[in-house]
């Protein structure tokens, strides 16, 4: 059957179950009361007060967890490219003889690219994630998984956990700081990563929680991001990750002139949009043009003496600097992008760690992004219907992540995509994106160095931005212009084989990852 974007979605997939086609960004949410969903039942575990949670090795913790072949194990990616735990656990499970497991991680980075070897060995059968990178992404796009991967947004993942669409049998939590009872935080220790926002949801709804730390501290460990009553076992290992790859010391601002032009345009769009006002809330990614937009916006805010209510999202130290200038009152942090953010979490009471449910889950009584005014997001590709791809790269491989892209685009009052009009001869503005992560109906404006295109659905924005000296163009004109400049033949084709499903934040299927034909 076809979904609202005209993409063919099978009704049923062996080992994944029934699929619901995407019908529009808020269609399912509006009618959700009829579905009468309930929170997932989670196993209650009780232990006698004197029991010792400390276990001497991962093997022993896994044995005691009762993990079985075919079970689902969860991970979180706050340690980013520096994470050792996921691969260490999977290696251990391989040695112990486990088969057919489902890996359910908040995302997968280059640190996890060798996971494909364990798919080949039969240890791992299914992968549910937000992102894919390196060799693993190529493996998936080459159609090597027997069961298609499922890509979820950060809010969508929290939803799937709470509804029980994905039941976590055992959650593995990388804990940069833990005591013997499993009070955990991410702000201290050699592997400090900042917020534990994604893992907090896993800890709440998993049937068993194993905390792994390289920094066992005196009881009680505070601040408490994940409390001891959710943690079943604590394992001490030598190293959780590589601090150099967990995060740089601070986020540097780009000096790429193209990015800076885009950012300046984007800041001027925000200023003139009608949403630039006292108390506005703001989110931006850590990418070149996105972060630079925050810089220009902050300068305008300072000049006009406008103070924002909160900044949210992945928080980078550049956002912390803007907060310190007094331009935002609060910061909500589901994932910290660099080490400068870690110390801010400890020092600033207005810097608040939040979980993924609070952040972006569409199926709760109100995620904080529902109050978001402006979000600035990146794109690999955007098409003339404003659909955005942030997953499949210009070689046809899955090499990106859904992240909070579709969540924040859906809820923010003003969703801006910032991207160069082409990169390395490859156009960014196209007729049809390879893979839709974020539907065009939730995207308002595209800002490139070659012009600004407003979604025709937003007549109000067209009105507000008219006559402000901004280079506004029709998106079709912009696309044609870019096509003439790049003049680049398409370098790959896809077969009909489905290698993955892109689940929209509400659990419906918006697109698929297709198998790439390598030339």
């Amino acid at each position, binding site marked *: 059957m076809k979904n609202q974007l005209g993409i063919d979605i099978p009704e049923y997939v062996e080992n994944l179950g029934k699929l619901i086609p995407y019908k529009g960004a808020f269609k399912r949410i509006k009618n959700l009361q009829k579905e009468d969903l309930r929170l997932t039942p989670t196993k209650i575990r009780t232990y006698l007060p004197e029991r010792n949670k400390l276990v001497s090795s991962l093997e022993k913790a896994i044995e005691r967890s009762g993990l079985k072949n075919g079970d689902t194990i969860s991970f979180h990616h706050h340690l980013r490219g520096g994470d050792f735990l996921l691969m260490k656990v999977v290696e251990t499970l391989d040695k112990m003889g486990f088969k057919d497991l489902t890996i359910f991680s908040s995302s997968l980075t280059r640190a996890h690219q060798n996971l494909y070897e364990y798919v080949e060995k039969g240890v791992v059968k299914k992968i549910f994630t937000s992102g894919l990178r390196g060799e693993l992404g190529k493996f998936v796009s080459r159609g090597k998984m027997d069961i298609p991967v499922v890509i979820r947004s950060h809010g969508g993942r929290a939803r799937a956990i709470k509804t029980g669409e994905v039941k976590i049998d055992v959650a593995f939590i990388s804990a940069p700081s833990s005591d013997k009872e499993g009070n955990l935080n991410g702000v201290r220790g050699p592997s400090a990563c900042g917020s534990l926002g994604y893992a907090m949801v896993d800890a709440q709804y998993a049937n068993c929680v194993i905390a792994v730390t390289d920094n066992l501290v005196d009881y009680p460990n505070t601040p408490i991001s994940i409390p001891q009553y959710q943690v079943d076992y604590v394992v001490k290992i030598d190293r959780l990750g590589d601090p150099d790859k967990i995060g740089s010391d601070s986020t540097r601002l780009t000096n790429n002139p193209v990015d800076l032009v885009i950012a300046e345009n984007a800041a001027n769009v925000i200023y003139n949009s009608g949403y630039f006002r006292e108390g506005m809330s703001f989110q931006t990614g850590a990418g070149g043009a996105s972060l630079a937009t925050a810089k220009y916006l902050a300068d305008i805010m300072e000049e006009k003496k406008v103070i924002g209510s909160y900044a949210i999202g992945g928080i980078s130290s550049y956002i912390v600097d803007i907060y310190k200038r007094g331009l935002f009152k609060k910061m909500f942090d589901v994932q910290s992008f660099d080490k400068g953010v870690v110390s801010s979490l400890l020092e600033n009471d207005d810097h608040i760690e939040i979980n993924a449910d609070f952040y972006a889950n569409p199926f709760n009584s109100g995620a904080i992004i529902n109050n978001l005014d402006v979000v600035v997001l990146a794109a690999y590709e955007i098409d003339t219907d404003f659909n955005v791809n942030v997953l499949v790269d*210009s070689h046809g491989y899955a090499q990106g992540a859904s992240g909070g892209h579709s969540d924040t685009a859906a809820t923010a009052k003003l969703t801006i995509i910032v991207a160069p009009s082409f*990169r*390395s*001869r*490859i156009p960014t503005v196209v007729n049809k994106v390879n893979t839709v992560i974020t539907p065009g109906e939730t995207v308002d404006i595209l800002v490139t160095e070659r012009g600004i295109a407003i979604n025709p659905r937003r007549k109000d924005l067209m009105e507000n931005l008219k006559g402000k000296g901004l280079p506004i163009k029709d998106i079709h004109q912009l696309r044609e212009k870019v096509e003439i*400049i790049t003049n*680049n*033949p398409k*370098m790959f084709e896809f077969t009909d084989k489905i290698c993955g499903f892109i689940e929209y934040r509400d659990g419906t299927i918006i697109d698929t990852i297709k198998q790439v034909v390598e030339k």
Partner: protein
Amino acid sequence: MEINKKSQAGSLESSDLMVYVEPFNEIKIEVESSVSSQHTEEIRSLILNELEMRKINGVYVKIQDNGAMNLTIKARLKTALLRGAKNGN
């Protein structure tokens, strides 16, 4: 124009390319491109044209392309050739 010493121009930044030039007894072109195999052919014919225009019959040109536009390729090639030529400047 005659190429009589090794030279190079460009960078390995995205949307740029490195051009390496050295004396050789015939025309030899080697192209590596991050963009596409079709693009490799386009770069090759662009180089041949440029060499012909300058009446160069012996040179080894090696290109490492990171998705540069044609005008960038021409400019980098011209610089490398001038640097490699006897009376080049």
